[in-house]
Each structure stands twice: as C-alpha cells, then as structure tokens.
C-alpha cells in the first residue's frame, strides 16, 4: 500500500519561490533592464530620446563590441 522509501540525495532540496513573490520583481527588473538596454544599445541609433548623440557616442565602443547595430 503506501510504502515509503527514504532515498539519500546528494543535493539540497529544491527551492521553489512562489510566483506571487516573483512577479512584481520580474516586472520591475524587466522594465529597468529594457531602459538600460535602450540607452546602451539603441539610443540615437535607430531610436532617439535625448537626441544629441551624446549617449550614442559615449557608449559607442561598447555597443559595437557587444554586437549591437550601432550606425
């Protein structure tokens, strides 16, 4: 019937964080990450929010070497 085996497992128990706890942080992080990515990868290339080219020139080399389309 309900036989119980005790098995020794060489690793910690699986941590499982409730989704309810994750979601607000996920939204917050994603929005922030996208904002940072916009400035690092796209600002004053195809999209321009500040539009004086300063951001573009400042992160110019990083944008090229991180493989994003720069200009």
């Amino acid at each position, binding site marked *: 019937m309900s036989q119980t085996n005790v098995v020794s497992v060489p690793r910690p128990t*699986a941590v499982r964080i409730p989704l309810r706890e994750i979601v607000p942080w996920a939204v917050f992080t994603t929005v922030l990450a996208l904002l940072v990515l916009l400035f690092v990868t796209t600002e004053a290339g195809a999209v321009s929010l500040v539009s004086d080219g300063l951001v573009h020139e400042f992160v110019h080399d990083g944008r090229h070497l991180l493989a994003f389309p720069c200009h």
Partner: protein
Amino acid sequence: MMKTLLVRGMLAGLAAGLLAAVFAFFVGEPSVENAIALEESHSHAAPHDHGSGSGSGGAEPHGHSGESGAAPEAGHGHGDDALVGRGVQLTLGLLTGTTGYAVAMGGLLAIAFAVAQGRVTTLRPRMSVTLLAAGGFAVAVLVPFLKYPANPPAVGQAGTIEDRTALYFGFLALSVVTAMVAVAAGRAVADRIGAAGGGLLGVGTYVTVMAVAGALLPAVDEVPGDFPGSLLWDFRLASLGTQVVLWCVLGLVFAVLTEKALAGKTRGRGSRDGLAVTVGQ
C-alpha cells in the same frame, strides 16, 4: 529571497561588465581603432557613402570629425571635435556600456533562476544558474550573432540603421520568446516521456523555429568591398569573445553567490549530503 537573488544577480553583472570591458579593451579596441582609421580616411577622401550606389535606403551624410555641419543624429564623431573623445569612448564609455548591459542581464538572470528553480530544474542552484547562463548566452547573443553578426565602424550604411536595428531586435525577441515557449513545452512533456525526451523536444523546437526564421528573414550584407576581411574577422571574434567573457563571469559568479544565498534556506549550512527526500509509492 527575491531581493537577495536580484542584488546578487546585479553584483555578478557588475563583475561580468568589468571583466568584459577589460577583455574588450585589450582584444577588441585595436580592431575598432583600425576600422575607425579606415572610416576616417574614406570620409576625408570623398563624401561618406559606404555602399557604392546600391540604392537601398537613401545615404544620409554620415559625418565624422572632419566633416562640418553633419547632423549629430545622422552620424557621430570619432575625432577631436566629437562630442565624446576617443579616449573616453574606449575606456569609460566602453566600461559603462558593458557594465550597464551586464547588470541588466544579471537582473534578468536572477528572475529566470527564481522562476526556473524548482519548476523546470531541480538541480542544485549553482548547476541551474550555470545552465541558465549558458542558455542565456546562446539565446540572447550567439543565435542573433549567427544571423546578424556584429559590425565594426565603417561597415553598414547609415541609411539602413533603422532596418538593421529592427531586424536585429526582432530576431533577438523571437529567439527569447521561442526559447521560453520551448522550455515550457519541453518541461510539460518531460513528465510523460522523461527529462531527456523533454530536453530534446525543447531544444529541437527552438533550433527548428530559429533555423526557419533565420532562413526566411532578409540578410544584411553591407560590408564595403574594400574593407579588409581579416579586420572584419578580428572584430567579430573580439565582439563574440567579449560576450563570452561577460556571460561566463556572470553565470559563474551568480552561481557561487546563489549557492551561498540558498545554503541557509536548506537544512543547515554546508550539509549538502545526506538530505533525505521521501518518495511515496
């Protein structure tokens, strides 16, 4: 717990950005400098027009240091009268770029781990993180790179930057979404046909979708005829290497930090052996 994970993810990102910048400075900058030198010599010799009249996309003036009155948003300067000097671009600017990117990726990696751990993977935390980082590199960098590889200065027509950006980010977004769907599908199937089968189905779905999309989407081929092939190779290799360094450091540092963060949450610090799991039958 989420706050702890996020902070550690971003700390790992900080370390990753720093080391990636060091790698990019020593390995990548020489080819960027060479490409800029080529670009400047072209723009001084003749009106800057990358492609030889292929007609796709009106060639906007792509101004560089010497050219007067070029609109800042159309081109950018590399020379003395640029908004940001080369000395700043290849040090502080480079560092800011890689660090900003890496910290953002660290935050997202922390979220991905929080969702995946205990749901998709029950491996020990540092294994899960390492696999997630490897997957993140493949999905967010390697696959987009294979279709739309990095280009140095002097490669790419100014008039097509919007199309190229849209294509790159479109392909990147497709890659990320496809990967998430493939993982979810593989996970759902794994309960019935086993982990190996689920993994194969997930990877197979992802590879198939991306291969088809890669074949259907338009190619970008704007390398000027006189641009040295070896320089292009050096730049692209350095660019990929920068990303490899970044994701390796990000994954490994976050793996160690996460393992430590979760050690207290399981039974007793450091007692990773002899933990009993009850299996009812």
